[in-house]
């Protein structure tokens, strides 16, 4: 089932140059789409059109069975999880209040809000006593987990993530990526994830959308982008780095284990 569809969508900020040049894209339910490209390629614009944070000029956008313009924008946004790079946690609210924000603006009962906040905190693997803490007491990685939990509060079918792990250190980023994969596997929602990191796009995406200067150069599984690049740009952009990213999970780990074990055996012999 198609959840999101773009048809020949264009967007310009200054009236001259198009940031999106007639974009077509279909997203199916349960897909984990990574939007990959350099800064200024239009990937964030594409993402923010979906929840109406940015308007578009021509073309059609469908969310589920309705055209975007037919949606009540507030109602639509409440059904879409949204995580931005800077997280934007509310500093005057506790972690629990942050997570339950969408439920609170929908005037759901307090009990339900608390229960949901506790559930989600567990889902993102933070201890329950964090519920009463304030965002300023959290580390960068913990804040990002709370940001993810907050986006999941209303059980949204669609989740939009705009370079959410860009500002955390590599180790934390890896953990967060693993968790996103687990959460996606568990909840099976449709995720659109903007990144400029090839490895991240390859690791997370069930389908990668590679963008360049307002057009989609290729969409496909990570394997397709690496092994069957549609054109020269894709080949150059993905290149050996993408190949490495493909290898990494399976082979590199094996090779590494063998190498280390071999050494360990040598130690044992001596």
């Amino acid at each position, binding site marked *: 089932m198609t959840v999101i569809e773009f048809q020949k969508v264009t967007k310009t900020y200054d009236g001259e140059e198009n940031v999106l040049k007639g974009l077509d894209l279909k997203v199916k339910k349960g897909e984990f789409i990574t939007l990959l490209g350099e800064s200024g390629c239009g990937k964030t614009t594409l993402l923010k059109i979906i929840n109406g*944070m940015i308007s578009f000029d021509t073309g059609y956008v469908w969310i589920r069975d309705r055209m975007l313009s037919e949606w009540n924008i*507030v109602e639509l946004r409440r059904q879409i999880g*949204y995580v*931005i790079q800077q*997280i934007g946690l*509310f500093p*005057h609210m506790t972690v629990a209040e942050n997570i339950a*924000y969408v439920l609170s603006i929908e005037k759901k009962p307090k009990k339900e809000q608390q229960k949901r906040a506790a559930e989600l905190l567990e889902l993102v693997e933070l201890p329950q006593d964090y519920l009463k803490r304030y965002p300023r007491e959290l580390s960068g990685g913990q804040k990002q987990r709370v940001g993810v939990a907050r986006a999941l509060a209303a059980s949204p079918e669609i989740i939009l993530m705009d370079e959410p792990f860009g500002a955390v250190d590599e180790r934390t980023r890896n953990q967060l990526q693993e968790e996103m994969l687990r959460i996606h596997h568990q909840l099976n929602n449709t995720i659109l994830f903007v990144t400029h990191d090839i490895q991240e796009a390859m690791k997370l995406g069930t389908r990668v959308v590679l963008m360049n200067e307002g057009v989609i150069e290729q969409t496909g599984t990570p394997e397709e982008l690496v092994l069957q690049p549609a054109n020269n740009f894709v080949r150059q952009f993905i290149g050996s780095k993408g190949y490495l990213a493909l290898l990494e999970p399976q082979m590199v780990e094996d090779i590494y284990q063998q190498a280390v074990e071999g050494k360990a055996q040598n130690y044992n012999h001596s």
Partner: protein
Amino acid sequence: MILRIIQLYRDRSDFFIELLIQHIYITFLAVSVITFLGLALGVFMTKNRRLAGILLRVTSFLYTIPSIALFGILVSITGIGLKSALIALILYGLLPMIRNTYTGLIEVDPEITEAAEGMGSTPAQLMFRIQLPLAFPVIFSGFRTMVVMTIALGGIASFIGAGGMGRAIWRGISTNYPEMTIAGSLLIAALAIVADSVLEWIEKIVRTHYLGEGGAHEKTTKAA
């Protein structure tokens, strides 16, 4: 001299209490109008940046007019009495209130408002749940400044027949009775100090409410 002032307070306590009540009443009226108007204008200004520039300039201009001159001008338009005094107090008090409301609101981190908007807040929810609480410390410090200023200016308002503690000062000056002038001035100062301390105390409590325990804690550790 000091003894004579104390003596004066004792002899004329009814007179001073009446003036004090009048003074508090006038201040209360002005502060209520300023708070309501200042908040409304400050919020409205964030929706219209051009209007914001104009309003800030107009209120800053009003602020620079010497109070005696403004009272004089108002007397010729709205006559002598409470009405003129209130108008003058309101015009002066608007600047700190408008400016702090506006600055407090526009200084809220845009990422926070983007997150709140993207999650489906209505404009009213965005304002009342996110922007106003986060701008509150700045707004409240403007409110405090305004209250203290209005109490002080209220002394001059009596000169155009609005009543209040200024009448004691005025009587002292016109009858060459310095004790009376000082007694009135001291009471105005005392009122301002008391109001400021009470507001400081309230500020701490509400800060804790809006910024969480941590917010208040940060402040106390800084003070300690």
